[in-house]
């Protein structure tokens, strides 16, 4: 157990260097900003999760009996908006990416620390606008804002919600910009692109999407707001505008946005699997390039959300075939992760359990994506619960699983404390079971025909809905547990050694928690990424991991 002796005297680190509200709210330290993000996105996660639970409770019975129809519509709209724009998109990049990228590239901070702080403030302003919008009536357009419903028919607070997401978009853009510049300009000597952790590669790819995709949704929302306020006609068919143009512009961002959520998670998993297999990652260059390929191809497929919306048959064919192009690099990643396990020395630590969960659930999510990009099948399952199940497998089974795995993996580094391993393994198991129970029935529900966004439904769909609601309850427990034991560990957890997992990477060579400027002197990298063979040989005694 005792891999490193923990000094008795408390060392100075980024957490205990300064105290007081101002030292946090005016900090430019990427690690403190990451924690600010952690607190804020956790807040939004539980708001969004609360909405999800209400949705599932309403769907327990076929009749609309728990809430009003309008309330239900607001619940699923704001569940989507909060989870997508205020939790999933910032989750891994703004918390783990923010904390780890400077450490991983051997820099003292991100390239633009003040812009990093600005980005958090923009997020908070956007979040407060969203909360205000919810408290004063909410919005019921669906997170997709489809026109002309959003511009001419909804009588809820579309403008405020649109502006909130507009502002949140700039927060996301600035994060991506900061990452790209940091990765290009701040790498330690010797840290070539082929030695870069794949977590960093994944964030580089994510940033490309944030930089080039987000402005398009921003301008689209400006147009929606203008259309709604002034009735210009750009998206209003009554005035000669095309509602499908809105959908094109919306999905140009919102499809790649899925990759903003999943790519960082893939990055996390690519760190965890080699570490707990004690192996170099299988096919480093293919995993790295597949991240970039996903980011680029991700921009070519957006109209597969519109196969039944009334686009031309020709366009449908083009977008269907391109959709399969993006499936290839995703498949390559799954195969490489699996191959990394081969002949490894595998430890079942909590982060690894999350990584296993991720690979399994992402596989199912990805494969069901093939159904949806097949034109003939999409015609039937589009806008049904099949789609809901598919994207929750990607976003919750994939992105959120990766986020939790990453939180466990780096928690000792972030907090300087160890979480209770047994509880963490239990939570991973509960999440996996609860998740599948919640969302697998929805695949069947979708294929038998239950449309999404239905507040009441024909009675024959009840059994599957009850299963799903039951699963959601289990899932909720699975999500509450880590929050409880993470908080517990901050006070009562055992102090973490600097490198509890004997993991590779610069972030593990500094103390836990790191000092404000991370590195006392500029590190020089002379080794390849994931050199677990060298690490394990370096230890005289048996490699023993914490947990």
């Amino acid at each position, binding site marked *: 157990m005792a891999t490193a002796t923990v000094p008795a005297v408390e060392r100075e680190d980024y957490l205990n260097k300064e105290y007081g509200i101002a030292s946090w709210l005016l900090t430019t330290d990427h690690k403190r900003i990451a924690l600010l993000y952690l607190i804020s996105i956790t807040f939004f996660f539980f708001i969004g999760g609360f909405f999800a639970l209400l949705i599932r409770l309403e769907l327990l019975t076929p009749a609309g009996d728990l809430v009003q129809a309008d309330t239900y519509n607001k619940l699923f709209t704001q569940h989507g908006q909060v989870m997508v724009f205020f939790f999933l998109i910032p989750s891994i990049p703004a918390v783990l990416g923010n904390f780890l990228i400077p450490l991983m590239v051997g820099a003292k901070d991100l390239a633009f620390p003040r812009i990093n702080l600005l980005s958090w403030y923009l997020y908070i302003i956007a979040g407060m606008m969203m909360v205000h919008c919810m408290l004063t009536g909410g919005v*019921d357009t669906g997170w997709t804002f489809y026109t*002309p*419903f959003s511009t001419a*028919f*909804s009588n809820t607070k579309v403008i405020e919600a649109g502006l909130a997401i507009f502002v949140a978009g700039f927060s996301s853009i600035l994060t991506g910009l900061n990452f790209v510049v940091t990765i290009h300009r701040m790498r330690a000597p010797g840290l070539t692109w082929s030695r870069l952790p794949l977590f960093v590669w994944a964030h580089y790819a994510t940033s490309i999407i944030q930089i080039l995709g987000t402005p398009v949704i921003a301008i689209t929302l400006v147009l929606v707001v203008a259309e709604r306020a002034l009735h210009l006609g750009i998206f209003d068919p*009554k005035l000669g505008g095309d*509602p499908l143009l809105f959908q094109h512009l919306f999905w140009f961002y919102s499809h790649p946005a899925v990759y903003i959520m999943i790519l960082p998670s893939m990055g996390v998993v690519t760190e965890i699997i080699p570490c707990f*297999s*004690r*192996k*170099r990652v*299988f*096919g480093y260059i293919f995993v790295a390039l597949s991240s970039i390929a996903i980011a680029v191809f991700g921009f070519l497929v957006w109209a597969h959300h519109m196969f*039944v*919306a*009334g686009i031309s*048959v020709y366009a449908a064919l083009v977008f*269907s*075939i391109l959709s*399969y192009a993006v499936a*290839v690099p995703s498949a390559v990643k799954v195969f*490489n992760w*699996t191959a990394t*396990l081969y*002949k*490894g*020395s*595998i430890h*079942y630590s909590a982060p690894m359990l999350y990584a296993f969960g991720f690979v*399994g659930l992402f*596989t*199912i999510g990805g*494969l069901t994506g093939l*159904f949806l*990009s097949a*034109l*003939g*099948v999409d*015609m*039937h399952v*589009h*806008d*049904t619960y099949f789609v809901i199940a598919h994207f929750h497998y990607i976003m919750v089974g994939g992105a959120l699983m990766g986020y939790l795995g990453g939180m466990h993996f780096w928690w000792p580094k972030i907090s300087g404390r160890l979480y209770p391993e047994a509880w963490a393994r239990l939570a991973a198991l509960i999440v996996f079971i609860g998740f599948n129970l919640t969302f697998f029935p929805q695949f*069947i529900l979708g*294929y*038998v*025909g239950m*449309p*999404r*966004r239905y507040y*009441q*439904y024909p*009675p*024959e*769909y009840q059994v599957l809905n009850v299963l799903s609601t039951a699963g959601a309850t289990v899932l909720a427990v699975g999500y509450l547990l880590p929050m409880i034991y993470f908080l517990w560990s901050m006070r009562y957890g055992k102090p973490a050694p600097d490198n509890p997992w004997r993991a590779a990477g610069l972030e593990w060579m500094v103390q836990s928690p790191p000092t404000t400027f991370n590195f006392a002197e500029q590190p020089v990298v002379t080794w390849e990424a994931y050199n*677990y*063979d060298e690490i*394990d040989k370096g230890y005289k005694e*048996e*490699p023993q991991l914490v947990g």
Partner: protein
Amino acid sequence: MFDNFPLWPQRASSMAGNVDALFIFLVILSGMMTLLIFVSLVYFAARYRHRKGVLAEQIEGSTPLELTWTIIPFGVFMVIFAWGAVVYFQQRTPPRDATEVYVVGKQWMWKLEHAEGQREINSLHVPVGRDVKLIMTSQDVIHSFFVPDFRIKQDVVPGRYTVTWFRATKAGTYHLFCTQYCGTQHSGMIGSIVVMEPAQYEAWMSGGSTGPLSASGEKMFAELGCATCHRSDSQGRGPNLQGMFGKTVLLEDGRLVTADENYIRESILDPGAKVVRGFKPVMPTFQGLVSEEQLNALVAYVKSLTPPSAPGGRNTAMSSPDSTSGQGSQVQ
């Protein structure tokens, strides 16, 4: 299985089998892939679990393997794409002689009107075995016409027509859902498709009609004064509409367009947009003067105008002798 626990939707249209076949293929394919990944994960995790004194064996990767699992999935994906495209194509090309039903979606109901004139709300009666083409538009927001047991879905977009079709194969009552979120009562915008045996259907049809849709269109055509310019000879100020439907039209600016439902619609509401060569843009717009239903009637009337030489009079769907044959029969 049980009444309240269906695992598979009914297969009640000619399209259902095609979609199911591809779906089952995909289920088997992805089931195998999932199994492969899960079994490898579990096997590797168990077989190579950490043991004292055993170090991991380092493998950097393998380019042939990478190429294999890039190229083979890509090949498989192309098969899925092609298969999906074929099914989609069938769904997007209604048979020529299909019976036509005009559908108007509004918050929160479906208004359906048979070419023969029967009007229905939230329900549609059709006979078994006949091709039915739905010409759909919305008078407010986007809706979507979804019949799970038929495996058809098409968004209904304001400002234009979208089209879908089906041929019911089994008598019964089937769900009709709106699947594009459309506001408060979105989940209440449901109805049913009642598929009847032909004899029962004829009995149902014989009641309640105010005459064919094209006849009310003809009446409007006269009332709105369309006939003064659109004469049935070549002397009118507007083009002769006899037999125009479905033809390719040469426009003033040299473009060619097919005279389909959307073209007729546009020409009534925005006459200046696509003027037929040889004519002046003198037609006034009827924007705001006709409702969606009246527009449908006008479109149905214009479509019914066959060239004078052709025998058999108006080609309403009722009079087409064998509307179950034709293009639709290849879809089995």
